[in-house]
């Protein structure tokens, strides 16, 4: 028979991994609920998932490609922008959906016990569904335009994993903050909106003037966007230190996010 011991929370409250694993059904069901609720009783339904990145990439190619006349490293601008948009949506979707998840599920948090960490984690499923649909569209375009990214495409799952870790790390920490401080929930979408222009999502790094280049080089979003495009549309590979940096930063941010979350986990029911 299982023995459970409960004591007041300590400062460092690492997740109980076996408990998380035993409660994995919660992730499945919450994820399923999110996906069903998103597409049931919607007019556009699944078309919405396709429409969203397409319109964004379309507007980006119109503004940056046609109006501003920026370089897309020799690729059709739309394909170039779509690759960036997909990676970006994976990142920002991970952050925004995870960050609002605890408050959106407050009745659960206040009334039943299950490892709370599963709430932000479960949100990643619907983000991945969006991503996969967008990716399928991108693959069709690659075939249509005859673009072959070559062997780096094999690394794509690695980038996806790292972007998910990064986004989820920030989103998980933010979800815990929002329980106490609702204004974090207003600042975050705004910050993401600023960052989308400050990162090479819709334009190539080659269009950035040299004296500003360092600002982009220290931005981890640049790292994953470059890596992502390298693997998907065959642009130049990012420098090795950026790849290395991405691995480190993603893992550290994810772990830090989880630790921050866990440190506040046990007071959620009292303050939410």
């Amino acid at each position, binding site marked *: *028979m*299982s*023995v*459970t*011991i*409960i*004591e*007041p*929370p300590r400062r460092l409250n690492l997740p109980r991994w076996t408990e998380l694993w*035993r*409660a994995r*059904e*919660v992730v*499945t*069901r*919450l994820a*399923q*609920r999110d996906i*069903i*609720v998103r597409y*049931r*009783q919607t007019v556009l339904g699944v078309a919405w998932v396709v429409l969203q990145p397409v319109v964004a990439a379309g507007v980006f190619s119109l503004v940056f490609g046609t109006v501003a006349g920026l370089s897309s490293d020799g690729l059709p601008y739309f394909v170039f922008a779509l690759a960036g948009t997909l990676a970006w949506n994976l990142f920002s979707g991970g952050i925004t959906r995870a960050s609002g998840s605890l408050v959106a599920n407050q*009745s*659960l948090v*206040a*009334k*039943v*016990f*299950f490892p709370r960490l599963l709430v932000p984690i479960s949100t990643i499923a619907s983000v991945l569904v969006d991503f996969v649909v967008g990716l399928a569209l991108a693959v069709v375009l690659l075939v249509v335009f005859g673009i072959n990214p070559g062997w780096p495409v094999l690394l794509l799952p690695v980038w996806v994993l790292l972007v998910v870790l990064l986004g989820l790390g920030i989103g998980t920490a933010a979800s815990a*903050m929002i329980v*106490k*401080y*609702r*204004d*974090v929930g207003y600042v975050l979408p705004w910050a993401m909106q600023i960052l989308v222009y400050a990162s090479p999502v819709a334009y190539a790094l080659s269009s950035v003037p040299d004296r500003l280049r360092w600002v982009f080089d220290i931005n981890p979003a640049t790292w994953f966007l470059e890596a992502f495009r390298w693997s998907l549309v065959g642009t130049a590979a990012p420098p090795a230190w950026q790849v290395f940096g991405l691995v480190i930063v993603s893992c550290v941010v994810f772990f830090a996010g989880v630790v921050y979350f866990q440190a506040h986990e*046990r*007071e959620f*029911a*009292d*303050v939410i």
Partner: protein
Amino acid sequence: MAQSDFAVRADGIGKTYRLGVSNISHSTLAETVLSRVRRGKSPSSGKVKTFDALDDINFEIPAGEALGIVGRNGAGKSTLLKVLTRVTAPTRGRLEFHGRMGSLLEVGTGFHPELTGRENIYLNGALLGMNRAEITRQFDAIVDFSGMEKFLDTPVKRYSSGMYVRLAFSVAAHLETEILAIDEVLAVGDAEFQRRSLEKMRQAASEGRTVLYVSHMLQTVKTLCSSAILLDRGHLVHQGSVDSTLEAYTASFDSHAQWQADPDNRQGWGGVRFSRMWMEDDHVPSGADLRIGFELPTTSKPIGLEEYWVSIHIVDSQGTVIAQCDSRLNGRTYSADRSYTGSTIIKNLWLKPGTYAVDAFVCQHGRILDVWDAAHRFEVMPDTRYTTGATDDAMSAGVVLADFQYEGN
């Protein structure tokens, strides 16, 4: 191994809430940062009132026992159950369980209106701690018990509230954990469903599972539990057989009433609190008008919206609320900038003979300003308005008496 014969052991459990945190202080990060800068210290180190919802609770529940947890509103019952079920963490002490703990704190938690009955069974089951195999195995039993086969693929938003509750309870009732914590869920559904639910609980207890049952419905505690503990203002004041605990519970009413007469000792946000509550005669015949007088002072601190309303409840000795007389139903609100001497007249309520309490509340949108438990007590005399007498069993069932007439031939 006498050592491991218990299912739950609590050692010095305490739970302290910081009152300042949610009320006066900061709900945005910006405010917190600003106040830190201004005061040069953490906002919580200022004037923070603390409140011990639970203090130094020790008990041991033998495996297979059905334990009732009783106490007045605000005695800490629900907090204790929340700590036991790990919804919230204790501030002090240590808890040890042998076996898995399942909780029925609120039925239907996690039900999503857009999902079908079937989908909700799986979601709710997972949240309550069942794994997929368990839910699949129990699925038919759950559906059977709820009687909802026909509506399984209908979104629950199209369910009536009765159907909703039945399905939700059915899921919870099929939890197979060794320890089961229940919080007044029996007060839902129609009488027939309540009876079946109670039966299910009794079955759980007789199967050798440990049941923790929180309630102020003394009758159900009596039928369900083998022992009980009594909480009073966060302390465990009695532990023993159900009968002795219920006796202690009843006896504690007088001391509680005296304590509650001081507004400072009462629950609620404050600002406006009843200063006095009375009845002309504490012994009334059944069916007579009840006139409950009260005094409300002007506000003692700003309460935001300057309007509030009051609600007066008639509660029987079992803790069941017989009538809620909310001033809003009369279209009556009160203003914080003046004092009132008023009364509520309750007509056409045929109470059964017995002892009743008057609970009084002062409320505003979104918060309760004053909670006065048992602000007054009165006795309904054995003479009823029925014209002919009969043996007691003619009125033993039911909660109130009715003004009825048999006709026809």
